[in-house]
């Protein structure tokens, strides 16, 4: 045992190298591969999660903005509708006013026309009466008394007719 044999030293060195190789290749490498893969997956997963959070935040902001916009839009629409309503009201009232005025004007005009017509009829009757009276006067004997009587009669007849 105490005899040192170089060959056996060499064999042991080779044994050690074999063990080194086996441990490196079959133990560490295999385990490292798994560990690395797992590490990679974890990193990827966490990155993905971060990305998703970011995306969710973005979407939330977008929706908030959209809600705000919708509020604004609502106000706008309400205002528009109100304005339209007022315009319509105004228009209707104006129309009504105009129509009323027109009716009044027409009525006035009609009344005037009627009035004219009545006046014409009255004038025609008056002319007839005058003609009649004149013929009567012409037919009867003429005296101041008679004339006065006739005129009075005529006027009272005309007044009665005219009423």
């Amino acid at each position, binding site marked *: 045992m105490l005899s040192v*044999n170089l060959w*056996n030293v060499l064999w*042991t060195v080779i*044994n*050690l190298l074999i063990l*080194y190789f086996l*441990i490196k290749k079959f133990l560490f490498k295999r*385990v490292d591969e*798994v560990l690395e893969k797992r590490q990679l997956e974890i990193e990827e997963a966490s990155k993905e999660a971060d990305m998703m959070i970011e995306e969710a935040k973005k979407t939330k902001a977008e929706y908030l903005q959209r809600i705000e916009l919708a509020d604004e839009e609502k106000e706008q629409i309400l205002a528009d509708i109100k304005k339209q309503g007022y315009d319509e009201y105004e228009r209707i009232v104006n129309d009504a006013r105009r129509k009323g005025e027109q009716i009044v004007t027409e009525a006035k005009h009609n009344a005037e026309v009627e009035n004219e017509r009545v006046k014409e009829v009255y004038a025609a009757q008056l002319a007839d009466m005058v003609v009649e009276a004149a013929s009567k006067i012409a037919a009867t004997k003429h005296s101041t008394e008679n004339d006065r009587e006739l005129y009075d009669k005529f006027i009272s007849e005309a007044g009665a007719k005219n009423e």
Partner: protein
Amino acid sequence: MNIKEVLKELLLEDKTLIHMPFGNGNCDFNKSVVLSWVFILVVFILILIFTHNMKVHNISKRQAAVEGFVIWIRGLAVGMLGEEGKDYATYIVSVLVFLACSNVMGLFGVVPPTMDLNVTIALALVSIIMVEAAGIRSKGVKGWAKAFAQPMAVIAPMNVLELAIRPLSLCMRLFGNILGATVIMELLKHILPVGLPVPFSLYFDIFDGLIQAYVFVFLTSLYIKEAVE
């Protein structure tokens, strides 16, 4: 049976196991070398069993154990080597496994391979080569050569001497410890072969064996750490 006879039997026994028909006995394989093959084979089979069908997800307890073991033992080696020397962790782990296996061989009733001076010499040689190679690799030949004159030029001869002293102390410490343990165990077995050797075997074969393995790799990594710094 006295201690002299035990020592004679242990030390002067013919350790050659496989005789080669050539080389005039120089190419023979010692028992220790063959025993190393045996435990290397066992370790290899264990590694194959444990690393068989490794998965990334839904790992088995077996895989969890082997992952934990690898992380732990590498952490141990890197802890001793320091961050700069972590490239040598695999080598340190290999030596640790080699020594741990050889030292506990006594449990199985065989003479531990580390009780053969050839084995410890080989380990010490590889270790000192690793140390110096690590120094050259990290500092370059010039820096490595200059490191002998540090911290001052006066102690340069001491540092050069250390090139021989370090492997010698590594080799002899290991050999002596295992030899002593084995001799004591042999004597105890002769006093009372039943029961009595059990607690001592626990100490000498397991505890002392693992401690010596740890001391060997601890010193080696210390030297490497010093060399790469």
